[in-house]
């Protein structure tokens, strides 16, 4: 029986090709049942159980064609998890892809990369050449996304594979029901698929030994910002944010203001929240989400209003531009936040932002807009002082903000 440390994908050595063959020899229903028993959830951020996705795709395919896509896109530039994985264990991803293909009966699979992931692409090409003889009739192709944040969103990814602009698509129907070329498609992050060879080798119980009851296994995380040794780490689910920060050498200078968890659309938790566990449910309860599993350490001299404005500035540039709440909403929220940190804020801006956050969350088309509301909700809740200082004292709490706007949004009553 392997020890829990052996379950860290990055330093486990197994013959993944052998596990793929074992998986192929199993009945698909049994394979899906095994994955179900392991409790493997999507590492892409939403945490949807992979087994349910596979089962849905298998049912929808009804023996016809289906596709499997490994999303190794790393949408969040600050969280190069798939690249780290592909550089170290490309065969895990390829064979995981093959196992998922076996589960749904797909004969075409795609490995979807960022256009600038050159070294990861070379590594995976090499591994693919090596694995190809064993893959049989499964065709695995490497596809490059367009770059940018939106290219990693699962429905935008499908559009890219169809040679179209990376635009989100309304769900339901989910890709597992209607995906690539309207056929059932399993889109799963490379990291999720990489766990499959391990599950096949050791069984569900062994996989569940690490992590929590609801989120078994380990997770790659990217620690960035004001951490002593930023980088990609693999931790078990359930590890607290404080422990992860410790592994990254703690915060530079010992103190920090907050932790930005989940990538560009993630919320910012204040420094007292180090006890929050890295776990889908726990993070959601804390007001943010696992997202790209980036944990960015904000140093003590960071104004959170400015930080939130920067995030929305990024989002307003990256939104696919299809749905109104996300395309216009992110820009308008950015404008209001910039107004606040340019000391043009008014007391009524805060309830207004709350209103717009609700709108983003309820009316956006895809996870991009829906989750971006967490930036507003967490920062206004946990860093109310930063907002207050700008609005009431007309001064930055940390003295770091320089005004960027001379004019704020005004209400124009119609003549």
């Amino acid at each position, binding site marked *: 029986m392997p020890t829990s440390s052996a379950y860290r994908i990055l330093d486990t050595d197994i013959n993944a090709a052998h596990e793929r063959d074992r998986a192929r020899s199993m009945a698909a229903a049994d394979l899906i049942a095994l994955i179900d028993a392991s409790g493997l959830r999507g590492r892409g951020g939403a945490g949807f159980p992979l087994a349910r996705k596979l089962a849905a795709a298998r049912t929808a395919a009804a023996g016809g064609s289906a596709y499997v896509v490994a999303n190794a896109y790393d949408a969040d530039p600050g969280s190069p998890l798939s690249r780290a994985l592909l550089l170290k264990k490309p065969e895990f991803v390829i064979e995981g892809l093959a196992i998922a293909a076996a589960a749904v009966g797909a004969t075409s699979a795609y490995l979807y990369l960022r256009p600038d992931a050159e070294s990861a692409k070379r590594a995976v090409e090499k591994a693919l050449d090596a694995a190809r003889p064993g893959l049989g009739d499964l065709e695995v192709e490497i596809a490059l996304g367009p770059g940018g944040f939106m290219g990693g969103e699962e429905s935008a990814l499908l559009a890219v594979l169809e040679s179209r602009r990376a635009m989100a698509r309304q769900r339901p129907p989910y890709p597992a029901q209607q995906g690539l070329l309207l056929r059932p498609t399993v889109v799963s992050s490379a990291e999720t698929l990489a766990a499959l060879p391990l599950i096949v080798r050791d069984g569900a119980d062994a996989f569940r030994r690490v992590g929590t009851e609801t989120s078994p296994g380990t997770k790659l995380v990217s620690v960035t910002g004001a951490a002593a040794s930023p980088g990609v780490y693999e931790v078990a689910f359930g590890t607290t944010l404080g422990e992860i920060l410790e592994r990254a050498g703690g915060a530079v200078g010992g103190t920090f203001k907050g932790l930005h968890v989940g990538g560009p659309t993630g919320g910012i938790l204040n420094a007292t929240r180090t006890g929050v566990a890295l776990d889908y449910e726990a993070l959601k309860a804390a007001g943010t989400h696992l997202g790209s599993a980036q944990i960015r350490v904000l140093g003590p001299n960071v104004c959170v209003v400015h930080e939130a404005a920067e995030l929305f500035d990024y989002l307003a540039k990256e939104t696919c531009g*299809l749905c109104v709440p996300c395309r216009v909403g992110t820009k*308008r929220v950015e404008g209001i936040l910039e107004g606040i940190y340019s000391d043009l804020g008014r007391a009524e801006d805060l309830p207004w932002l709350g209103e717009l956050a609700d709108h983003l969350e309820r009316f956006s088309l895809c996870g991009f807009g829906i989750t971006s509301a967490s930036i507003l909700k967490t920062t206004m809740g946990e860093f109310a002082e930063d907002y207050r200082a700008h609005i009431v004292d007309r001064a930055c709490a940390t003295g770091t903000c320089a005004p960027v706007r001379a004019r704020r949004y005004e209400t124009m009553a119609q003549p």
Partner: protein
Amino acid sequence: MSLIKDYGPSESQIPTVSHHGEIPSGQPVCQITIDGKQVTAVVGESILRAAQRAGFNVPTLCDDEKLAPAAACRMCLVDIDGFERPQPSCHLAVEPGMQVTATSDGLFGMRKQNLEYILSDHNAYCMPPCQVGCPTHIDIPGYLELMTKGQHVEAARLVKEVLPFPYALGLVCPAPCQEVCRRGLVEEEIAIRQCHGYGGELSLEMEVAPTPFPQEVATGKRVAVIGAGPAGLTAAYYTALKGHAVTVFDMMEKQGGMLRYGIPEYRLPKVKLDKELNSVWQLRDAEFKGGMKLGRDFTIDDLFAQGYDAIFLGIGAWTSNELRIPGEDLPGVIEAINYLRQNASGDPVPVGQGNKVVVLGGGFTTFDCARTSRRLGADVTVVYRRGRKEMGAHYTEVDDAEHEGIKLEFFAAPVRIIEKNGRAGGVEFQRMALGEPDASGRRRPVPVEGSEFTIECDTIIPAIGQSPVLDWMETTPGIKKTRRETIVANGALMSDRPGVFAGGDAQMGPVTVIQCVAQGKLAAKAIDRYLAGDDMARIAEEIREEERVPELIDIVPYKPEEPQVRMPFLPFADRVKSFELIEKGYDKAGAEKEAARCLQCVCPDVGRCDLQRLSLEHGLTDNRFHRAEPVDYHDYEYDFSHDFILRDLNKCINCTQCVRICRDVIGANCYGLMGGGYDSIVTTPWNVSLSYTDCVSCGACAETCPTGALMLRERDLQTYELDVVRCIYCGDCVEVCPHGALGETPNFELSTYQRFGVTVLAKEELASARTWKPSEHIPLADESTRELIRPPEIRPPGPPRWNA
């Protein structure tokens, strides 16, 4: 690496059944519940379609039943039991037993937020506010454009469609249009009033005044109009244009009502006024009977007995309101209206050189009295109980009065009139301060204790409002009056007695000239419909709908500044003791220059625009995202280079309907989303002119566009000419036409009808057209027999096959 090179319909998941009419028989149906109502839906169709068929007004901006759903506009989101978040009803197929909430306060608010977002980057004009602000709704951008082109009489004609007296109103109108003019946001408003004044003045020179439309044929109906003021004459004008015979009665000898007897000569010269008002009598069957007073010389019943089919009461408001303070009856206290009338008729007036006059009030009449007295040589003080801003008179009146040497006293209310030698010798006032706003929105003045003061004077003119004279009502059954001493009339301006209409000051209380004209116009419409036997409740509803003030939604694009062209004025020094007209009027160049300043801030899509409609339905009046930095808004160039389709990206809302219709229905695939993030916009590849794309000019994109972003160029196609010498009968034109407008005739490909329905070549002509033999000489188009040229009916042989 190979991406899938297949442009499959990867968005279409939902079968489409038209939302019009009944479900075709044989379709499998299921039951769903929308807002608690059982709805029969076709299995697999979208919730939106089922809801539309069942009569629910689910808003949407990106749905077209020909197209796959996009779920882009986020307007049609509905709450569905079992779903955590609202779902786009255009994109989700019905399932049996689905419980849908399509209308709720929460959804309404969220949809409204969507619209606010869309409009916050809708860098375009909607309705011109001047046209909305004007009670008569003159097409102001329209006539200003005509004036810019030098077509002044045409401009006057356009104004006369709703306002028969552009010259008079050009001088005396308080110009509510100018207060809301969008040019004011750039630097200064357009001198709208003076501009139509110029056009009106120019048409006074014509022997017969221009009419907006030709007078209709006589209907044989007779209408009596009582009161020859602005309301009455307007009603008479439009009633006569409709073909009815009109008789206008007035108690005064001459026409004009308050325009003549209330407004002094220096604001409106009576000679020219007469000239303009005479345009009414130039119409067939329109006559004026002066010196006839209602109640004294005739009654309403008399008129009906004389065979009039309808009566319009525009009797004005001719009594001045009382001050209700002690000393009001003393000699030296003059009635304002009477005083102005005496002055206008040339009768002796009780004010002259050396008099000390106090005028009480802050409206137009106040200043007419004050400035008249000043011109008669008196020393004048105007006293008003509120401040300068609260005055009812136009600010130019107030400023001019001050410059003419009239003293202004604010925040003072008269307490009593002091007696001196049996005459009025002064007024005691009490200081006022502004309190809470009253019903009219103006802050109510409240007295300040112990602040009494006195102004010595010998003449006092209270001008604090007027009321209609309604003593004739006692002998007239069926017509009622309100508590404010005005005539009761419904939405169609009809009083409680059928066939008797009322408007103007007599119905609304004292208002501005332009409001009276507007009522005259509406009354004429109502009378015309009444005489045609229409249901008056429906007419009232129609008028209410037409007069509803639409909200205007826009942000103002950048314009280079250019100040107003100044109207020449009579110098202040020349105004003492002179009743000469103050406003000298524009000359041609001035008028044209001023008219050219108009921003033409009107969208041709107004009324057809879904965005406007939904915004009105959602009560979106204010937008909270205005006036920030330029980076917050887009300012795109127009693309008017295409022959048929006009593109204005500023009005694009990224609904992607044109993208989908051009790609999936037409197949040309001219549009797509370009740019990234907030700068995403639907346009052609690399934003080139539409002419350089594969556009087939079918117009489907403009047809489906929910806003004015894509519009068909207005054009009147004549016939296509076929150059028979150059045509190679390839048939490409027939093939390419997506609407099948170029038909294939039995013998050859040739257009029979072009797309706007005008016959290119009538079918009969085709049948009898000459057949050209290959060897025959085909006359060229420019030869004298041009009309006779018909294309041959038989496809000519191809080039000779040399090897055959």
